[in-house]
């Protein structure tokens, strides 16, 4: 008898509408549920301002209805029917934006003094807490750790963002880049791609000393396997990367050796970022031709100004929340490094350099380029998971973009580069319910990006503050 009852239940589950939660609150482990503040399955956010990620202007007094893991409806108050039984969150004075998509979001952290640690616990929690609901890891040093975190998150065992795993860094022979795979021939490059594709990587990240022959092989093999390729490059110019068929380029202006007069084929000129920062012209002929080529070939660019800023003299990142998240010894090393930069009269990374980054990104967007963003939690350690993604938002506003454009950069454009824009990146009916609720008016004040109250992923709302509190003092350790 019990068997007969069980069968119809299973059948009902199969026939249920496809928009049921992929990962409903009920399926989450206790360790994950602990951070859930809005369990759903039916939720209405009312009275909010929406910046929807499409590039359209902000709209006030809107209602968003979430059913299961999808956005069921979005529209002006009164025009959207709130389903019976919905949990209604009245949120006047709040702004809702799409979950951010971080395209340079490592699971590891590199801080001052040569510290490198896998943020097994802190990174996924901080990303989700900050409103980053999808990340691409864009290079890893403990590759199986990244794959396992992704699997744990997908099984509901740990809170965290959707993860697109990138293989370990791949570069050319260079003793200084010991953590990375170093390929010496096109065949080695292909073997590397095939192995990590099979392990679950969907992207490859090339690094500063890879040569053209190996990069060409990486790209060809990756495309054959259905993967895409991005790079923090130096031995390859941006123009060469575009010509070789690369899908995305990281960091922007400072790493474009197209602007380094010393550039020789297959070689990364020493201290190129400094030379480019001093001598490069972000709006000149070279820049215009390069941008045109990137746009024509639909090669997106990932802005990572959050990692550049702390290394820029006069721009020390000293906000309390970042320092509190760091382990005490990591904080100490970081503050010492900041002091050393400020005390050094010859420090090469200057405000003018950062302004050139901004100008290049403006030129890229004005020409129709797909600009996305990511934190890159490395450098001297001042850009940490999630907080640095929020800082990118503020820096893009400083660069001169309006709120609607910046929201699109940090969400929809990332989704487009990743090829998930049919499901993610904007607040539109039918899309997956990945949303960020901010207290305040983001349109008039970019710092509101830090005021996250609830982050929805797959229609489940997570308590941002609780996630952040749970990892205080952990960044740099685990």
């Amino acid at each position, binding site marked *: 008898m019990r068997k007969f009852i069980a069968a119809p239940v299973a059948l009902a589950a199969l026939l249920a509408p496809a928009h049921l939660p992929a990962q409903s609150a009920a399926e989450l482990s206790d360790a994950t549920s602990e951070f859930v503040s809005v369990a759903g399955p039916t939720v209405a956010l009312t009275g909010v301002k929406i910046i929807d990620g499409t590039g359209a202007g902000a709209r006030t007094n809107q209602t968003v209805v979430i059913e299961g893991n999808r956005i069921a409806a979005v529209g002006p108050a009164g025009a959207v029917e709130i389903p019976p039984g919905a949990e209604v969150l009245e949120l006047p004075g709040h702004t809702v934006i799409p979950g951010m998509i971080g395209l340079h979001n490592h699971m590891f952290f590199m801080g001052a003094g040569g510290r490198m640690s896998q943020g097994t616990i802190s990174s996924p929690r901080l990303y989700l807490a900050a409103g980053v609901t999808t990340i691409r890891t864009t290079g890893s040093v403990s590759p*199986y750790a990244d794959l396992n975190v992704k699997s744990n998150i997908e099984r509901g065992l740990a809170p965290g963002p959707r993860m697109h795993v990138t293989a370990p860094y791949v570069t050319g022979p260079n003793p200084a880049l010991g953590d990375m795979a170093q390929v010496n021939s096109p065949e080695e490059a292909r073997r590397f791609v095939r192995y990590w594709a099979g392990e679950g990587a969907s992207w490859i990240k090339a690094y500063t000393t890879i040569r053209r022959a190996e990069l060409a092989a990486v790209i060809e093999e990756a495309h054959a396997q259905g993967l895409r390729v991005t790079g923090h490059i130096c031995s390859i110019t941006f123009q060469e990367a575009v010509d070789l068929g690369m899908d995305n380029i990281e960091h922007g202006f400072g790493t474009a050796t197209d602007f380094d007069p010393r550039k020789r084929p297959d070689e990364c000129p020493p201290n190129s970022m400094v030379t480019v920062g001093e001598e490069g012209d972000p709006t000149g002929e070279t820049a215009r031709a390069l941008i045109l080529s990137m746009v024509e070939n639909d090669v997106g660019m990932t802005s990572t100004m959050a990692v550049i800023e702390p290394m820029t003299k006069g721009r020390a990142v000293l906000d309390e929340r970042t320092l509190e998240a760091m382990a005490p010894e990591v904080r100490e090393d970081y503050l010492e490094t900041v002091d050393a930069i400020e005390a050094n009269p010859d420090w090469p990374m200057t405000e003018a350099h950062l302004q050139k980054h901004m100008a290049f990104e403006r030129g890229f967007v004005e020409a129709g380029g797909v600009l996305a963003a990511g934190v890159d939690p490395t450098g001297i350690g001042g850009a940490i998971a999630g907080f640095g993604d929020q800082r990118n938002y503020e820096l893009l506003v400083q660069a001169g973009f309006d709120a609607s454009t910046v929201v699109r950069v940090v969400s929809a454009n990332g989704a487009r580069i990743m090829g998930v824009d049919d499901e993610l990146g904007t607040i539109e009916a039918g899309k997956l319910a990945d949303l960020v609720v901010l207290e305040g008016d983001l349109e008039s004040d970019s710092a509101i990006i830090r005021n996250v109250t609830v982050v929805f992923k797959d229609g489940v709302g997570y308590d941002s503050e609780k996630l952040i509190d749970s990892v205080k003092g952990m960044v740099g350790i685990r």
Partner: protein
Amino acid sequence: MSRVLAAFAAIATVLADPVAAQTYDRLSEEARAYVAVRAPTVALEHVRVIDGTGGPVLEDQTVLLRDGRIAAVGPAASIDVPEGADRHDLRGHTVIPGMVGMHDHLFYTAVGGRRVQLGYSAPRLYLGSGVTTIRTTGSVTPYADVHLKDAIDRGDSPGPRIHLTAPYITGSTGAPHQARVTSPEQARRFVEYWAGEGATWVKAYTSIGSAELAAAIEEAHRLGLRVTGHLCSVSFQEAVALGIDNLEHGMLTASDFVPEKEPDLCPGNIMQRAGSSDPTGPIARETIEAMVEAGVGLTATLSVYEAFFPDRDVVDERTLELMAPDLREAYLDERGRIQEMGPDPESFRNEMRFEKAFVDAGGLLASGVDPTGNGGALPGFGNQRNFELLLEAGLTPVQAVQVVSANGAKILGVDDELGTVEAGKLADLIVLNGDPGSDPRAIRAVRWVFKDGVGYDSGDLIQATRGLVGVR
């Protein structure tokens, strides 16, 4: 004709440089900074030798090193020291073989969830402590291990000879950084890839399934690799039957001691349950017998276990000095907690008894530090501590030297070149100021460590890592 000449030239090269050795000339500035003895011919005179063969302690010996090899060993009066040799009168010193560390990761874990690649401090600490050969026995940042080996082999970085182990391979559950394999095909694919990257060993972990372990062993053997494991889901006897080459840790990880263990499942509380079993009872005897018959060695890792037990001497000043300040504080707090409410040390004593029984039964016991756990066992220092603990376990000094050197070389398959102080072998040896036969702590009094005939200053290597353990 030119071919014959070329062949002759090649042979001449081989003869002139019989070791492909890392002579002083090939070292970088950075590596040279630690070198204390660099002459092509070196005489260590009037030393005591414990040679690693299991033979008796030899007094008043001269060890002659030439071009990276041990040229002669014998009574001081009978060895002709060639003209021009760099002669050292080392009365009161003891020479033992360079240690071969069989569980010597290049990463380090410690209290508070710290897990750090010690790309700078680990190679210096291993070499400075007298560990001239290591097997990495699992890695977390695999390419970093690969490239550190290259850097040491090129002479760019000081450090031990490295036998690379692939990343850990386990089943559907495991530590965060381990490769999880759930089919034999996946296991084979894993082994094939890392073999190509330079791994010569594979390390299986506690949740691997027996089918996957069998596939890993088969594929590894096909490609000329060997397999060891810190096991649990597969018992020692099962692993021996599957053809594993080496087993790590000892009875505290042997699920053979849990009679109701289900196939492919790691029983809970394994350390406690195995540790409270009889180390010389029927299960222990069966397990040891199976290993001895199959020639499967065991790697002792007493120093990593010791730090988990109260009333143990594991808070030495030299270890604390090397730790990063916050780590030191956290470790001392942890030791305070353990002292108050740590586990019964009887299981630690049982582990020692098991290892002694294994040796007594003819088993091939080697040792390694395993610089993990709560962080008390540092690279190198923990290898030295193993020596002391093996003596505490009841081994003789001659046996303990053999365990930390020659037996590791045998398991690695490099015993024709390394592991003993004998003429013809590579000149990897340690000069100790004192007699470890009468004072176990003399193992810490390393003056020079010779690798490939080049003598490194132990103190300089160790001091270079002050405050960096736990950071890099």
